[in-house]
């Protein structure tokens, strides 16, 4: 066991070191690269904590999409702009707030009773009634379905917020933030070969979520990453934000979730209650629709607000 303890301690030290370096890095690009390595190590920590579902989410988001967001932001920042360097007062305040949060978290962890209160046995005991094998999916889509429903709506709201940044004249156009002028041949090859495999992995992650780590969010994130890859190389064009098809896909997941939830009033006796015996097919249907909607929402969030001149027809 001491080997495992040494490994955990080493992992924790590495993460702390990377975190410190990321926050003091001189260039934005360097900080982003440090942060992405940090995300990978955090995924390993989640595995050590036996939370493979969380590790999958961290890996899919952290290595797939976050890099685009952060490096894209770094590329748009004017270099060495005075506004980009906060003053001493702001830095001190940020340091104090961060230290307070860290101290609060440490206190909570230290004050935990020796055997922490847990609902895990109850969650596992009721899984057979749902036809599921993965307790995390059980919590997300059944026990705490209302949280997941609201989260899936939040993604749509976030996209509406992003779209509202568009100028009036640009409205209805195609998002243009990801287009690159002259993608390298190696990149184009990757964008041709990888998506079929990635789509397979995305669907597999959604499907296996019922019995093993995985699920709609992880699967949708992988699908979104594949879409983003084809957008960057220009192999596909982002859809017009006014298009009916893209909007239908965007709301399909939350809408189906909500419809089944409301139907639960009559069929299951409560909001978001599944009728006995039909839980698993309903859950799979919700997860399938959510996977698609999450993929479209994440891809469009990365693609940025619409631009009128990005299409051939203004």
């Amino acid at each position: 066991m001491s080997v495992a303890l040494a490994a955990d301690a080493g992992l924790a030290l590495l993460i702390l070191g990377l975190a410190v370096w990321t926050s003091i890095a001189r260039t934005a690009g360097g900080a982003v690269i440090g942060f992405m390595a940090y995300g990978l190590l955090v995924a390993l920590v989640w595995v050590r904590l036996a939370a493979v579902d969380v590790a999958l989410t961290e890996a899919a988001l952290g290595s797939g999409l976050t890099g685009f967001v952060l490096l894209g932001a770094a590329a748009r920042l004017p270099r060495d702009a005075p506004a980009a360097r906060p003053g001493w007062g702001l830095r001190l305040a940020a340091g104090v707030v961060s230290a307070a949060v860290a101290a609060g978290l440490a206190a909570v962890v230290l004050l935990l009773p020796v055997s922490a209160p847990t609902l895990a046995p109850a969650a596992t005991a009721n899984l057979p009634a749902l036809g599921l094998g993965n307790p995390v999916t059980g919590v997300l889509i059944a026990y705490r379905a209302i949280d997941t429903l609201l989260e899936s709506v939040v993604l749509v709201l976030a996209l509406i917020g992003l779209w509202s940044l568009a100028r009036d004249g640009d409205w209805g156009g195609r998002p243009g933030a990801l287009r690159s002028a002259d993608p390298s041949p190696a990149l184009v090859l990757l964008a041709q070969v990888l998506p079929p495999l990635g789509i397979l992995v995305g669907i597999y992650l959604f499907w296996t979520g019922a019995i093993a780590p995985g699920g709609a969010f992880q699967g949708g994130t992988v699908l979104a990453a594949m879409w983003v890859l084809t957008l960057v190389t220009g192999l596909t064009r982002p859809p017009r934000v006014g298009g009916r098809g893209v909007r239908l896909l965007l709301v399909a997941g939350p809408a189906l979730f909500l419809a089944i939830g409301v139907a639960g009033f009559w069929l299951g006796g409560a909001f978001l209650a599944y009728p006995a015996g039909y839980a698993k097919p309903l859950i799979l249907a919700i997860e399938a629709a959510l996977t698609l909607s999450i993929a479209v929402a994440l891809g469009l969030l990365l693609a940025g607000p619409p631009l009128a001149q990005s299409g051939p027809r203004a």
Partner: protein
Amino acid sequence: MTIALTLFTIITVALGVVFFLAGTVGLLRFPDTLTRLHALTKADNLGLGLVVLGLLPQVAWPFGGLKLIAVWLLALLAGATVGPLLGHAAWTQERGREPPP
């Protein structure tokens, strides 16, 4: 037979670890960005490849084994893409002009 397979796993995985070590040493010691990139791809292709090869007798067939092979092929594809991309970026950055075709 089992002993032979176990021995195979131990030797192959250990060789894979050696290639990871070689890749890291190359990344730390080689003189410029392009040669360091070269060290990286060795670890990618051979280190991970040997680890996957060594693990193959230890997993369930077909899906466990195919998944391992898929991981290696994906890593190969990523390495083959990252190499040219970073090499091009490093060349342009160091010399201030586009590399010859």
